[in-house]
């Protein structure tokens, strides 16, 4: 046959490259780089979360107020009317002599706080820089916390990433049922704010007749029981200790009843506070409070050292497990909210794969048959290029471990229809030249020349649309523009360069008396 030329060598190389690199994806091997299926194909939960950063700002303001109180009292400065009002803390000094001292204290100890003073009344707000920092911290902390929780939950490869300035993208593949999905969401949302609080035994018998306002006056707070919502506890609002002193939390089982419970350990400081408190409070009750619900409030029988505490409650093993995970991974500084959620069950994902694969197969067969019928061997050559193109799309996506989504599949199907376009243009040009009496060699060379600018310009315009779509698209739409773009670029290599090389390779074999076989040209009546 003909001689090898550089075009056909490049094409063969690309073909082999395409086949080799798409093998891991096609046989779904353990090793090698593969295409990951999008959540719409394999099933899973996709959520875009936002963080209620205003809550983080509020608590920042609260802690500022607490430190002001502490500092002023420490210095024996008399003040009045310390209060938090939406985004500001204000107080009033009573002694004019304190003003300079206070000014200095505030300036030294409260970095990032903007101080407004009129006479002896002070108003303090967070500087915009500090506010931004606080917000950013809250979001970053939420990303870390949620990631920790999902990693501990045990499903394969969850993704938790910051998206844009203030959103969090959560993707959890392999969620099987709606119940499991709800469990995951509950785990994400759990504030996991653990507190140990003492029961106000003096007034405890009045708890059912007391209002929240009244409780506040005594420095108390009323909280409900987690299982029996009618049951209430009157607790001192300042906790004995909180979850920040926790080092570990594990699920265990009660010996007699075999009911699940949560064991947790406190750090050194926490253990000491806990031991001292229990020593002083024998005979009184202590409540374990999680996210403002009382889980258990046992009587303290003796001093508890060692810093090991148990939470009992009517948990299912799953609940106990999830609470332990949430406690271990720390609490959320600010609550999260759903902005967008897309959840696809595994059966729907499978249906999507089947449907789009059928469309791909049918579309492919139709196009391939059509090309052979219409163009003869020239059609076979175009089909070879098309097959190489498909392998190349798979190979390139595998190499970059790109994600294949349902719209991405649609993009591949569309590529099948559009990639042969280049060959249609070229073949039409070659036929035209053959009809006008050119030799085969000249018809092929000239045909490729004439067709090139049109194909190039047409592909570039489609590529412009695809790239813009990639830049502005979100999620699955990105998948569509990705496959279309790769398809177009690959078609330049396969449909233009590759087929050209094949023609050149086959050139000596092409019989000018059998143009019907080679190019699908009808024999003319009364040919020259």
């Amino acid at each position: 046959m003909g001689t090898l030329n550089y075009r056909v060598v490049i094409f063969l190389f690309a073909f082999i490259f395409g086949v080799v690199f798409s093998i891991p994806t096609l046989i779904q091997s353990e090793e090698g780089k593969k295409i990951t299926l999008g959540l719409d194909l394999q099933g899973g939960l996709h959520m875009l979360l936002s963080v209620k950063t205003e809550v983080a700002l509020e608590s920042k303001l609260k802690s500022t107020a607490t430190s002001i109180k502490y500092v002023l009292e420490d210095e024996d400065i008399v003040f009045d009317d310390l209060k938090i009002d939406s985004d500001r803390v204000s107080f009033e000094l009573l002694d004019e002599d304190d003003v300079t001292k206070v000014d200095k204290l505030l300036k030294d100890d409260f970095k990032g706080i903007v101080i407004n003073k009129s006479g002896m009344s002070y108003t303090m707000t967070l500087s915009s820089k500090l506010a931004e920092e606080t917000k950013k911290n809250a979001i970053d902390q939420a990303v870390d916390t949620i990631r920790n929780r999902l990693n501990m939950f045990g499903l394969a490869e969850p993704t938790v990433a910051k998206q844009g300035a203030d959103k969090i993208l959560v993707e959890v593949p392999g969620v099987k049922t709606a119940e499991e999905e709800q469990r995951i969401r509950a785990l994400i949302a759990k504030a996991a704010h653990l507190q140990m609080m003492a029961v106000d035994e003096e007034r405890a018998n009045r708890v059912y007749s007391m209002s929240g306002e009244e409780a506040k006056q005594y420095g108390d707070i009323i909280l409900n029981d987690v299982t029996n919502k009618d049951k209430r506890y009157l607790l001192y609002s300042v906790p004995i200790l909180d979850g920040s002193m926790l080092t570990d939390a594990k699920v265990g089982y009660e010996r007699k009843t075999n009911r699940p419970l949560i064991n947790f350990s406190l750090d050194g400081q926490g253990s000491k506070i806990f031991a001292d408190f229990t020593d002083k409070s024998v005979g009184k009750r202590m409540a374990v409070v999680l996210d403002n619900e009382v889980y258990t409030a046992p009587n303290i029988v003796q001093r508890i050292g060692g810093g090991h505490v148990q939470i009992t409650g009517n948990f299912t093993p799953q609940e106990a497990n999830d609470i332990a995970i949430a406690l271990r991974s720390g609490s959320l500084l600010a609550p999260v909210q759903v902005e967008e959620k897309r959840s696809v069950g595994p059966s729907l994902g499978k249906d999507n794969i089947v449907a789009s694969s059928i469309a791909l197969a049918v579309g492919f067969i139709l196009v391939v048959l059509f090309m052979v019928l219409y163009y003869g061997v020239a059609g076979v050559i175009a089909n070879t290029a098309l097959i190489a193109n498909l392998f190349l799309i798979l190979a390139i996506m595998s190499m970059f471990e790109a994600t294949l989504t349902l719209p991405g599949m649609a993009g591949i199907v569309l590529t099948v229809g559009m990639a042969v376009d280049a060959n249609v243009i070229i073949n039409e040009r070659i036929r035209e030249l053959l009809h006008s009496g050119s030799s085969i060699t000249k018809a092929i060379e000239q045909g490729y020349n004439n067709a090139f600018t049109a194909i190039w310009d047409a592909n570039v315009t489609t590529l412009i649309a695809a790239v813009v779509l990639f830049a502005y698209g979100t999620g699955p739409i990105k998948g569509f523009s990705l496959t279309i773009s790769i398809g177009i670029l690959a078609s330049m290599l396969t449909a233009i360069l590759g087929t050209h090389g094949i023609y050149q390779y086959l050139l000596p074999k092409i019989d000018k008396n059998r143009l019907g076989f080679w190019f699908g040209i009808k024999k003319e009546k009364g040919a020259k």
Partner: protein
Amino acid sequence: MEVFKHNQAIIGFMKSAKKVGAFSAFMIIASLALLMTKGLNYGIDFAGGTIVQVQYEGKAPIDKVRDVLSKNKTYSTASVTFFGSDSEIAIRTKSTSKDVDVDLSDEVRNLLNGTGSFKIRGVDMVGPAVGDELRTQGLMAMLLSIIGILAYISFRFEWRFALASVMALIHDVTIALGALALFQIDVNLPILAAILTILGYSLNDTVIVFDRIREGIRSIKTTNLDEIIDESVTRTLSRTTLTSLTTFFVVLTLYLFGGEALKGFSFTLLVGVVVGTYSSIFVASPILMWLNFSVTGFREQEAKKAKREKEKEKMRAMYEQGSM
């Protein structure tokens, strides 16, 4: 096989340009009227809302479901329709919820308890803020790609070619949008992708015809644009038809076999392929003529360009000689 004879007589497309123009104008006005009266039916991606997809074992008790939901506050305005088969339903509502741990699908699951054995196969919820953002992004994407394409074609051809192709493009997109309004198809992200694909596809077709016209201007003796256009369009007719056919095949298979999720997407593309083919044959070239495109002017410009190139080369040669 050959459908179009190589010695195909040149078809007088330009003679019927006025009639075709009237037809196109009618289609555009009808589309605009549809868009203004019926309007686009924005799906949850752009308008915000929730879709819960429920599959029953056996036929879905759709009346029972409607009945149960109508008594619930969140779902009283929800629409319940069969989805793809009669065992599957889609519940659509404008409501969304920001709660992470208990959301609208959990509520549906509780409400539907007792209507039969079912499972929730998919849930899509887009909050209003995200919907707005997606819509702005979609419009931006559309504008940017039109600008990009306009710039590219102006650079490769001439501004009249660019303008004519963009006008043909607007023609195609308007009619495709009109079809979406007529059939009240949910306009979601995949539809946006389809519209942008139409942009690319329709241009693809137009560019290939224009490329032939550009070639015709250089090689055909006459200065009569009508004749050049007629000949060029006739020459590209077989390619335009064949490519449209192959693309049409695959889009049709997507529509028929691609499943419910791709229905709207492939429908939009079907309309786009047909309209795009029509416009590249019948619409784009007449616009070129109406824009007072001058063959002699283009030739002069090309000659000037060639002359400039030559001069540059001469200068370069002289410069190189001088520096040697």
